[in-house]
């Protein structure tokens, strides 16, 4: 005898449960958590290095950085004096909620303003896993193709911000920033976009002011959550 049971749950239910609990912890502690996603080599680590160097010193930042192998990125980022932990996935192409939960175990969140999660370099798999972040951020560099948002729509669809990186190279490469941005907005109408350069003077201004705004929003969310108790 055959019977059909109706199931109404998400395939990644367990990951979702962990992500929601992380999101609540971030909110209650006033932490802005950002999940950075791009192909390998788009400049996630370079953007973070320059961001850590430029941030207002009163901002308390921490970084979790994911890679399949090596702790090179953690060593690059630890030079700035903020807490950094490497998550080595040992082959897995993305980070999941459980990895974040485990690596945050001995980190007090109360004094933290900003937590960056640098995902494994991959434009596909990380888009399926909620890490409890406030926002996913997708990076694309000008040495890639303008049609990447159309080829990899899921991550552009799910990200709140698109950072176009290495824009100092625009004069030397056949890349139309306008076309890349228009493609991103076809997939995700109204998507926020900033252009960034980790080497040009003032190249991070738009990105840093976006960050400041979002840190303020996270603090307001914390006050609201506390007032509601």
């Amino acid at each position: 005898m055959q019977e059909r049971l109706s199931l109404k749950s998400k395939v990644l239910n367990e990951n979702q449960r962990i992500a929601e609990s992380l999101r609540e912890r971030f909110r209650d502690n006033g932490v802005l958590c950002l999940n950075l996603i791009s192909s390998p080599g788009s400049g996630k680590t370079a953007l973070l290095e320059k961001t850590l160097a430029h941030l207002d010193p009163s901002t308390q930042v921490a970084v979790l950085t994911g890679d399949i192998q090596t702790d090179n990125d953690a060593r690059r980022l630890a030079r700035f004096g903020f807490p950094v932990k490497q998550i080595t996935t040992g082959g897995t192409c993305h980070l999941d909620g459980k990895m974040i939960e485990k690596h945050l175990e001995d980190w007090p969140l109360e004094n933290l303003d900003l937590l960056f999660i640098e995902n494994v370099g991959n434009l596909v798999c990380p888009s399926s896993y909620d890490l409890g972040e406030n926002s996913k951020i997708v990076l694309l560099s000008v040495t890639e193709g303008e049609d990447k948002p159309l080829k990899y729509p899921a991550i552009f669809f799910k990200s709140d911000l698109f950072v176009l990186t290495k824009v100092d190279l625009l004069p030397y490469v056949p890349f139309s920033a306008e076309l890349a941005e228009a493609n991103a907005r076809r997939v995700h109408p109204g998507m926020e976009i900033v252009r960034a350069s980790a080497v040009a003077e003032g190249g991070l201004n738009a990105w840093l002011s976006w960050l400041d705004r979002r840190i303020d929003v996270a603090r307001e969310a914390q006050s609201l959550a506390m007032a509601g108790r």
Partner: protein
Amino acid sequence: MHELSIAESILEAVRKEIALHPGTVPTRVGIKIGSMAAIDSESLTFCFDAIVSGTEWAKLKLETNVVPARRICNNCRNEFVVVDYNSICPACGSSETLPDGGDELDLEYLEVENAGTPVA
């Protein structure tokens, strides 16, 4: 290539469901995949078959239902399927539209049969 991880999560969900229905054997599991979910259904089916092969779940087949991205118009409340990334409302021409799903990765159903003598 995270379809293997996703396949394992599906099998885990089936295990949990079957634990609630002792005496049954699962034969089909149905999932809904949004076109914006970044899941390749063929690759997922391949991975799923590979992990159940030779196990007690070998009879279990994965059935995938890929659904397109949809949007709702803020102006006229029309609900429409997004074709070729066009997010303009086909009814009123407004560009003020909001996403309505598209990144689903949901369990929909599980078909089971009785393992032994049917229970009266």
